[in-house]
């Protein structure tokens, strides 16, 4: 299949079950909300290396926030609720509580599973804290030097999907980067997803484990490294003419959100200089969520039939 001269490989992205939380951060200005959001989502690119994957989901208008101030929503993804709780407490405590004028609220009020965040952070108040119970939710008021930090006692956690991905294979670095940037811009317009890597793009795609270092949980994916093409012992997946590859990883609250994001990303990434778009998988053995690129590259509503077995 081709899209504006770009070959779409007949393969699929393999993704995994995760747990997600949505945090709504408000502040006296959109800039301070973004500062807190950026600080909170720093060093959260890979759940393997960072214990959590996080990113800013969307800017929120005052009408969309609990306290009527401008803000944004952050999505965090972890392997399980317990791990996610620990990361929420760490990151809200260190990056939001400390940031001027902010307040922090749950963004998944309908989630059945709830984890305690503000109820633990309240201890920073050293018994000077107080709380308010409103519409079935408790909000903690923690006195700080600037005034008060308000944080919701519990946050919702729901099932989610992590590890959706697409690989952009281009003739040179500039073309790969331009296409990836365009894809990121399109994908970030979709609610319910984040792109956890720097600028939404990862240049260091990995394989599970390592060939030569036994203690490594992940190592470089030599099959997609242009500089290793032709080296003895290296099996390359790169077609002729490809000199740079960039990957976009996408985590989402549900399958539909990831599909929408990947569809938008593929469409935007089909630019001059891009030779092929493919995806990473483990043969379908590790993750139960498969996103077939040919389905996503078609107009919405059209799905290719499965190939005959």
């Amino acid at each position, binding site marked *: 299949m081709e899209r504006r001269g770009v070959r779409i490989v007949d393969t699929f992205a393999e993704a995994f079950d995760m747990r997600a939380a949505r945090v709504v951060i*408000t502040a006296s200005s959109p800039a301070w909300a973004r500062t807190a959001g950026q600080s909170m989502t720093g060093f959260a690119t890979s759940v393997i290396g960072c214990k959590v994957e996080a990113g800013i989901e969307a800017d929120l208008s005052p009408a969309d926030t*609990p*306290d*009527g*101030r401008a803000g944004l929503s952050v999505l965090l993804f972890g392997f399980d609720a317990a791990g996610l709780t620990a990361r929420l407490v760490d990151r809200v405590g260190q990056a939001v509580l400390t940031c001027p004028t902010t*307040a922090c609220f749950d963004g998944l009020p309908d989630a059945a599973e709830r984890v305690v965040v503000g109820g633990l952070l309240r201890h920073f108040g050293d018994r000077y804290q*107080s709380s*308010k*119970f*409103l*519409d079935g939710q408790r*909000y903690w*008021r923690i006195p700080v030097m600037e*005034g*008060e930090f*308000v944080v919701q006692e519990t946050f919702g956690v729901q099932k989610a999907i992590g590890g959706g991905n697409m690989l952009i294979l281009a003739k040179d670095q500039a073309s790969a980067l331009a296409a990836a940037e365009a894809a990121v811009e399109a994908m970030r317009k979709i609610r319910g997803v984040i792109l956890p890597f720097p600028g939404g793009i990862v240049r260091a795609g990995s394989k599970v484990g390592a060939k030569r270092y036994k203690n490594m949980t992940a190592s470089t994916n030599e099959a997609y490294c242009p500089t290793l093409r032709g080296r003895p012992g290296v099996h390359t997946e790169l077609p002729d003419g490809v000199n740079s590859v960039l990957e976009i990883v996408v985590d989402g609250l549900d399958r539909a959100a990831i599909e929408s994001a990947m569809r938008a990303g593929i469409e935007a990434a089909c630019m001059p200089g891009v030779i092929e778009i493919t995806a990473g998988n483990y043969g379908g053995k590790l993750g139960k969520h498969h996103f077939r690129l040919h389905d996503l590259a078609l107009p919405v509503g059209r799905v290719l039939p499965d190939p005959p077995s």
Partner: protein
Amino acid sequence: MVKLTLKEQFTVPLEAEVLSPDLIAPLKNAEIKALPVYHGKRQRRLEDYFTIEGDGSDEIEIDGDLAKVKWIGRHMTRGRILVNGNAGMHLGAYMKGGTIEVSGNGSDWIGAEMSGGFIRVRGNAGGQAGAAYRGSLPGMTDGTIVIGGLVRDFAGLQMKGGTIVLIGGAELRTGAWMTRGTIVSLRPIPLLPTFAYASTYNPVFLRLYARRLAALGVTIPVEEQGGAYERYTGDASIPGKGELLVWKTWNGAA
């Protein structure tokens, strides 16, 4: 919705704690009419004083001057009571949930010892709103009371939690012996000497209330452009950790 209309005024107060969604919701019209009320020492039927339309519901609307009707919404845990007129003493006492709205004036002991829910009185109110009854230790422990007009003495007496919003201000001894909780006044009020000034600011948590109250047609200021709240903590005679938040515009006008 079940609708009640007061038939006539009376001098002796009527004790009508059956006016609660918890009691009325599961009943048919005939059963509602037979509910017992106490007029002085005499037990009567609810229909002796009210015309009653509709079967039981979580929504109760009552028309008439109910200034002599006590205990409306006592112990209620859910639903909504709308009083088109005045309401008598002990409105929403011991309330745990739900909403009571009164278009006219309230009386003494509004929301006394309540532990949840929302009470709004558009007009004036009597004394001891959200207070503890004589002999009890804690007053209201949670929930919200909003009074549109002037409140008499001892609002929030022995309060232990929750929020009282005094849009029209209050008379004497507001927050006496309160241990916790919040009293917000949009007008200057006389303060007990056992309350200490803490700071002037715009609390973020009030924005949550502002949004909730705006849906009910109540506006409380939260934007810094207009002014800020002076925070007083007390009652130090207990000593308590309660707070009084008194709105002050930047130009000093109330």
